Structure formats: C-alpha cells, structure tokens
C-alpha cells in the first residue's frame, strides 16, 4: 500500500511485515522512554550510578557510539575532500549511521546530567579550559551538520522530490556538500579528540592521565585515530547486517573492502601509537606517581586480560587482518576483523571510563564495583531501538543505496 513511497525500482517487504517489525522495535523504544521519563521525574538516583561511579554505562555508551559513528565524517572527508569517488556507494549510509549515533548520544547526555533544565549553560557559561565544553560544542554543531547532510537524502524521497522547490533545494545542498563535509571533518576530529582529552587530563586518575602535546594529552590523538579506525568498518557491518536481513544486495563488496582498508590503515597507525603510549605510561608515568602497572588491575572484572583483549586481540589482530589484502578480501574474515575492531574500541572507551574511576587512588581505599541497573540499560536500549527505527524507515523509503537497483536486477 505504501509502494508509491519506495525509491524507484526497488522491492521492499510487505507493509504488514514492516509494521510488525517496527512494532517489535518500538516496544523496546517505549520501555526505554518510560525509564527516561522516570529519570527526568525522580533524578538519576534511579540509576546504578553512585558516589564513586559518577560515570558509567551511559558515558561508555556515548563514547562508543560516537567513535563508531565516526564513519560519517571520515568517509565524507575522503569522498568530498579527497574525492575518492567509489565511496559514493556507501556515503549515504555513513551519514545516516552518523546521524543516529550523534543524536542518540546527545539524548543520553541530557539524561546523564543532574539538571537537564540547565543543559544550555554549556553554551552560555562555557569554561574554555574544559575538554567537556569543547565536546558539548562540537557534538551539537556536528549533529547539525549531519542533519544538513541527511536532509537532501530525505528530500530525494520519490514523492517529495516531485516538488520543484524541494528538488532544487536538495540539488543545491548536494553541490555544497563538500563544504559541510569539510566542517564536519574539522568539528568531528576535535570532539573525538576532546573525548579522549577528557580522560587524559584527569591528573587524579593515574589509569587515564597522560602527558601530551601543548594542551592536548596523548589520549586526544589516540581517540581520533581509534575513532576513524573503527567508524568506517562499523558502517560496513551495518550495511552487511541490513543485506542479511533484507536478503538484497546493497553495496558491492569492492566498496566494503575499500572501507575495510581505510579503517585498517587508520587502526594500524592507532594501535602502533597506543602500544607506545601504554608502554611509556607503564614505565615512565606510573612510577613517577609511586604506582605500578600491576596496581592498575584487580581480580577478574578489572583484570589485565581486559587491556590485552583491547590492544592485542581486538586491536593488533584486526589491524593486521584489515591491512592484509588477501584476508581483507575474504568477506567472512573482513567482517570478523570488523567486529573485533569495533569491540576493541568500545572496550577501550569502557576501560577509560570505568576502570580509571574504580581504582583506589588513596592507599587506604578499596576497589569499587559498578553494575548498571535496569534504567541505564533500558535507556541505552532506547537509543539502539531509535537507531533501528530511523534506519528501517530510511531504508524503506529513501534512496540510500545507489547501487541497489543495479545489483538486484
């Protein structure tokens, strides 16, 4: 019945089936929404956060999705600035993924602060020394950029596009997309970095603190690299997942492999510096504050295995897999590497968030434990559900994949 709204010449599942699917996802969304409203009403006392863990699942989740959403700005940068034309096959998807990740992250942040009514203080009374201020500015600005990048795609929807004004608008926006891509790349680089900087400047948290260059601790640069090292491949994984679910070819493997190569290259650079950084941290910084590498870990849940998983299994390994053409060009291995990559980066964000504040700094204090409660899970789930909803709608009604028509003849 909604066939008239489909992009030209493509097949979509029956409306009933679609409604069913959307209903299923909406259930999660609504549950999360309930949790969110409860949090606004009662305050974050309803979460599992406490005096030791002011940061928890939410911040980890934010950092992870923002890193994974980095595909948008980086691919955009390559496509529009470095003019790698082949990326046009997947650029739309990266934009949508980016948009979902960033808008989602912002929603979580408004929940995460104790006084949402004052959220705007971040702009009105900014502290220019705070990495967080920088994050607030760039994330919101970049989110706007993503909206601008998303709009033309929406306007190209078959029916809307019939309206001359909208048609021209979309066209003109496309023409200037390079500009937005440029701005996006700039903004994004900075806040990805600042997210890392946020932890790097924590002088009281030896696990996270890093020396650095000028005002930027090393984590600043490591976070940028790690983001671009996983963003592109995450888009590929999303795309592949959609292909598996819809049973239609959406992007040719050549493009995916290219994305893999891009991610792989960046990941390699990242992991190289990450290892250097970790080495210097363990052998130089820690002793200078009277601590040892072993003191940074505890038991199983804060064990060393986490760091090794992050750096070796989910860092070095996927990096090698992705830069080796023979491996990269095998779909299964590409996806495996991609998954490892994404896990590694998310784990990195988790460790910087939770491990660094779980660790006792006062010699007479103890390790503390944190478990997110239902409210945090539900709201995080809500963001995921929201993402799936947006993605489903976009896939069904928008011309996201230029190759789809040709590939599914």
């Amino acid at each position, binding site marked *: 019945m909604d066939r008239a709204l489909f992009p030209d010449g493509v097949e979509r599942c029956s409306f009933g089936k679609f409604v069913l699917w959307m209903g299923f996802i909406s259930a999660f969304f609504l549950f999360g929404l309930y949790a969110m409203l409860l949090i606004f009403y009662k*305050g974050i006392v309803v979460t599992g956060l406490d005096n030791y863990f002011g940061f928890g699942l939410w911040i980890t989740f934010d950092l992870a999705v923002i890193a994974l959403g980095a595909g948008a700005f980086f691919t955009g940068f390559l496509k529009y600035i470095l003019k790698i034309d082949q990326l046009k096959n997947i650029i739309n998807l990266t934009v949508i993924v980016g948009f979902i990740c960033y808008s989602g992250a912002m929603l979580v942040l408004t929940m995460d602060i104790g006084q949402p009514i004052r959220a705007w203080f971040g702009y009105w009374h900014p502290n220019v*020394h705070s990495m*967080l201020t920088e994050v607030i500015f760039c994330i919101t600005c970049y989110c706007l950029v993503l909206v601008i990048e998303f709009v033309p795609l929406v306007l190209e929807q078959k029916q809307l596009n019939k309206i001359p004004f909208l048609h021209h608008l979309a066209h003109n926006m496309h023409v200037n997309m390079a500009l937005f891509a440029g701005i996006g790349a700039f903004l994004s680089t900075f806040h990805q970095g600042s997210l890392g900087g946020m932890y790097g400047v924590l002088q009281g948290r030896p696990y996270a603190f890093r020396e650095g260059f000028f005002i930027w601790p090393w984590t600043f640069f490591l976070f940028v690299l790690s983001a671009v090292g996983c963003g592109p491949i995450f888009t590929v994984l999303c795309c592949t997942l959609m292909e598996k679910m819809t049973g239609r070819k959406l992007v040719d493997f050549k493009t995916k492999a290219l994305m893999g190569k891009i991610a792989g290259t960046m990941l390699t650079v990242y992991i190289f510096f990450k290892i250097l950084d970790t080495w210097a941290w363990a052998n130089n910084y820690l002793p*200078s504050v009277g601590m040892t590498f072993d003191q940074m870990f505890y038991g199983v849940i804060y064990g060393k295995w986490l760091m090794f998983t992050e750096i070796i299994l989910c860092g070095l390994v996927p990096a090698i897999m992705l830069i080796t053409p023979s491996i990269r060009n095998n779909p299964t291995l590409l996806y495996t590497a991609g998954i490892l990559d994404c896990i590694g980066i998310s784990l990195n964000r988790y460790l910087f968030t939770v491990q660094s504040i779980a660790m006792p700094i006062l010699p007479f204090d103890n390790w503390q434990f944190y478990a997110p409660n239902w409210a945090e899970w539900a709201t995080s789930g809500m963001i995921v559900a929201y993402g799936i909803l947006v993605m489903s709608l976009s896939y069904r009604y928008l011309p996201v994949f230029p190759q789809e028509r040709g590939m599914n003849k």
Partner: protein
Amino acid sequence: MAHGATKEFKVTWGMVIDLDKCTGCGACMTACQVENNIAPMVDASNKMRTLSWMLVFELSNKKSGAEAEVAYLPRPCMQCGNPACVPVCPVVATEKNEEGGIVSQIYPRCIGCRYCMAACPYHARYFNWEDPIFPKGMEKALSPSTSARPRGVVEKCNFCHTRFMEAKDKARQEGGNPEGLADGAYMPACAEICPTGAISFGDVKNKEHKVFDLAQGKDAFRLLEKLGLNPQVYYVSKREWVRKLGDNYAATGKPGAAKKHS
C-alpha cells in the same frame, strides 16, 4: 587546563590535622552536616549514596594483637592549589579564584555532569542524589550558612566559607582588616568542635597563624602529594605507617616525600 600550575594567593586557608589526636569520634562529621544543611539519610549505611563533605576514614596497620594499630583520618575537601576538578568543569560551577584559595562550588550553576567527581582522587565531591527533604519540622533547625541544594548538583566542603565572609564582616564592623584576619577569627565547624583539637586551621602563609609552623613540621604530609594537586590540607602523625598510607610509594618506598611528578 594547565596542570602543574598552582595559583598563588596572599592568604591561603589551610588545615592541619593531627592524626595522633583524632579518636574518630565523628563530632566533626556531625558538626559539618549541621553547618551545611545536609539532610539525614534513612539508610546512611549505603556509603555510595551518602553526602559526607567531611568523612573520617579508618586506617589500619594490618597487624594483630598488641601490634595492631588504627588511625582515623578526617577528609574534608583538600582545596587543592592545583585542583583536578576545577579545569574540567564545563560551566565554571567551580573555581579557585578567591583570595584564600578555597575551591568554590556554585550549586545554582552546576549542571550535575559529575566530571569533577571523576577528576577528584580524594572523593571529596558528592553528587546530590535526592532533594534535601528533612524530617517534618527539622527544617526549622537549618543553619543560615549554606543554601539547601536541589538534587542533581555536585557539592563539597568549602571550609565553611560563609564563616569566612562573616569573619570579614565582623572585622569591618570592629575596624579590623578583613583581608588579614587574626588566627582563630575564622574557623570551620569541624575545627571548632573537635573535642581533642586535632584539627588546626588558619592561613598557612601567615607566620602569625599556628598552622604556618605546623604545616612545615617534620611529620607533616599531604595526601597523594605525588599527583601534584598541591592540597591545602596537611596531616601530622608521628607514626610512620600512617604517613606511609598518605601516598603511593611503590617507586620510592619512602614516606613523606614531597616530590611532585613532572
């Protein structure tokens, strides 16, 4: 964020706590709670949700029998000379700008992001999990010194700052110098009430104030000096194991080292 940079002030309010005199009775915690209008919690045993601007830690030498020793360590806000919490605040809700060097925390400005809590290694900062609702009638016993904070903001010890302001007004009224208060003219609630006088308070830069010498005594130390946060709260103990517990010494093995990391 310029770490390692300590802002200098003519007057530097500091505390010297004699750990060999602290019996751990808890009067300071009570006085603090009263002065700063912290609403009592029904389940205060959940230390992960309490608000204790002043918190008395229990230190043990981990020995047994006649060798066993414990020490009690009252922990207010350290009012660091180079605070980890101030530069990270995105909305300038906390700063170290006022003469006296007390780190301010402005509740009406705070948005409750808790970044400062993540930054403070002393756990001196507390998030106000719930609105300050007192048992019926008890709000009549609120102290005029500190505003009641709404839920969702971060709060912490400020050396009973209002007492500082009042001391200055008194000095003005009596024709004294509000910028050069005499020793004892300004006392935080904890220092005033401590039954064994374990807590001394004053201007650590002023020879006239007894803390000037105490802070330089051979047994004086500060918590986590190696981190370079440069606290304005000093501790004194003749017991080496206590001094040793004031910092991490895995590298040097020696206590009392005032070494800042470069």
